């Protein structure tokens, strides 16, 4: 099984440990993982700003780069959703067929673990209280869980995986899937509302007694972490891959260097 690791641009540059944890996790589970270095960004910032024309080259690049792999795995619901749900209109004819083949084998990390690898349990204990932050694109584009608005039953993939981690306790939130307010350029264009939304999520996780807010999208957590640091809130943020790979609670706040 040859996996092409699709690493979101901001994880590559700002949260390398999330990608390293993803890589180690997949390797531990027996996969052969490559990181094709031609990759950069999926194009979502451009597309969501209304500039689909300049996002299109990113889509063409993506198919070029990831076509040779058996699977494409990404530790982000949002970037995966961009590729799987929002690329189609960039392609036509034979290009569309090539895209469809890549689309079919592109997975968000929890999807891939759940559908392809199916690990029974994870070894590293995590003796902390965890608040689950469901990223909107993972939840409502990829359906990695049941959104609170819909009345159909489906698995919470991240929750199912974390249930297999020894000593980990999930705390109940009052709003289990409200948006954190990151929203890409929204965070800057509507900065005030964005910050208010983020602070509301942080307050919810804090009142639930969480030690750490855990998500499948580091972009939500980058925004939340910025607010936590500004306000001095005693709450950590972690990608679920970091927990599964056995990282410590403070991994993202200690500015650990992974050189």
């Amino acid at each position, binding site marked *: 099984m040859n996996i092409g690791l699709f690493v979101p641009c901001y994880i590559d540059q700002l949260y390398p440990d999330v990608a390293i944890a993803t890589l180690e996790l997949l390797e531990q589970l027996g996969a052969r993982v*490559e990181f094709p270095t031609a990759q*950069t960004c999926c194009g979502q910032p451009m597309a969501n*700003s209304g500039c689909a024309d300049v*996002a299109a080259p990113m889509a063409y*690049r993506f198919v*070029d780069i990831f076509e040779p792999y058996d699977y494409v795995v990404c530790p982000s619901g949002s970037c995966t959703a961009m590729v799987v749900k929002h690329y189609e209109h960039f392609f036509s*004819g034979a290009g569309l067929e090539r895209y469809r083949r890549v689309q079919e084998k592109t997975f968000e990390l929890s999807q891939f673990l759940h559908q392809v690898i199916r690990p029974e349990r994870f070894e590293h204990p995590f003796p902390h209280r965890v608040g689950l932050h469901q990223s909107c694109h993972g939840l409502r584009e990829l359906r990695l869980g049941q*959104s609170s608005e819909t009345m159909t039953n489906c698995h919470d993939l991240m929750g199912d995986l974390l249930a297999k981690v020894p000593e980990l306790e999930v705390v109940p939130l009052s709003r289990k899937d409200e948006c954190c307010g990151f929203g890409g350029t929204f965070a800057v264009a509507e*900065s005030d509302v964005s910050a208010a939304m983020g602070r509301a999520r942080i307050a919810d996780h804090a009142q639930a007694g969480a030690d750490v807010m855990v998500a499948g999208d580091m972009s939500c957590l980058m925004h939340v972490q910025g607010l936590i640091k500004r306000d001095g809130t005693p709450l950590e943020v972690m990608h679920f891959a970091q927990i599964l790979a056995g990282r410590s609670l403070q991994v*993202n706040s200690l500015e650990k260097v992974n050189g």
Partner: protein
Amino acid sequence: MSVSTIDHPAAAKQFVAEKERMQWHDMALWFVRNKRDRQAETLPEWEYLRELASAAKAHTQANLAELLETFERHAVAQGAIVHWAVDAAEHNAIVLKILQDNGVERIVKSKSMLTEECHLNPHLEAHGIEVIDSDLGERIIQMRGEPPSHIVLPAIHLKKEDVGDTFHQHLGTEAHASDPKYLTEAARGHLRNKFLSAQAGVTGVNFAVAETGAVVVCTNEGNADLGSSLPPIHIACMGIEKLIPRQADLGVFLRLLARSATGQPITTYSSHFQGPKPGGQLHIVLVDNGRSKIRDSDDFREALNCIRCGACMNTCPVYRRSGGHSYAAVVPGPIGSVLSPASDAERHSSLPFACSLCGSCTDVCPVKIPLHHQLLAWRQEIARQGHLPLSKRLAMRGASMLFARPRLFATVGWLGRQTLRILPRFLTHHRFNTWSVEREMPPTPKTSFRKWFAKHRAENVSLPIVSVSADQRRESIRTEKSS
């Protein structure tokens, strides 16, 4: 066409600044959203109902002309007078003429987003007709001279103390009164006189049934019933998208409407009007006002499914924290941000961006309008029409060029991290760096993942994909695409 451009972020900033009020507004609407969840959970067939409603609306839009004519035929056969208005001006002129022909000087009106859209009240008032909004929330904001901030809960931006002040000023209630029962009683007494003296009643329409020619009006206060029953003339104003094909479909929509809107199983009153009462007149005004244009658009057609339940507002985390008035549009919130640009894209160009694309509106919508995808589609359309700020267009073009060059991307990323590390805080966290106004900057690790990978997994870097030129492959895709 655009008088001025709406600046949603600026209006939202003001709303957020009043922190306590903003949090109260958020809680008040979240409470309604929760009630809706509890009601939806009681129906095992909830998702099936949404499918049915969406399909019935799709069928209606596909056969709109025939169904409208069927509706007119049945309504006329029962004695209603049906009028057709191409736009707001024609709608207002029709209503005014009916009133003037009958010597009407005083009317009561129940809640109707269509008459808000057409600005009927100022038009009638300019011609000397007294218009009293009879929905309690509408009456409150009418006294205050404000537009509604929500389509179902028009005065949701006001606290009961605000209502007490308004009633003290306009109805002479005790100063600083805030007891809802006392204030409601005062409003009842005041409105009762208005109902009794009105010479005509204007109502909105929730549904018009093509096969029966009936119009259906849903309220909780019974104000539409009083307003249409006491005076001899009833004028029902409706957008052409209110049509549904069959009486059987009505059951689906009534079950969805109140549950989605306020978390009630059904509205207190669901009144069916078929023909005028003996000796009276029933006028039905069918209004297009841009709806045909939306119907013609593949991207936005489903927006006409809307039954004006307001669930997308209650669930929208941006609406709850920016308030309905920040949209400066007749219909605020997600559905408003889809509908408003259809009438004037430049004026409303900030609205589709007043959205984090969380998709909650799409999932809550009882008629399955893909709201957040339509907002995304509007962003493309606004860019195509040239209403994006130049700075944004250039930034995105620059980003695209950078992302097409992996080595340059890696270098720029490294430079950015080094700069953030070295510079003193006051040079990185200031008001021109909008991110840093409310938040700290992200961490600045010494190494990127790609650098780490090259060092620690060197054996995996040498695979063919890395050595093959991405440019060549891209060319091949383009060729296939254009052929």
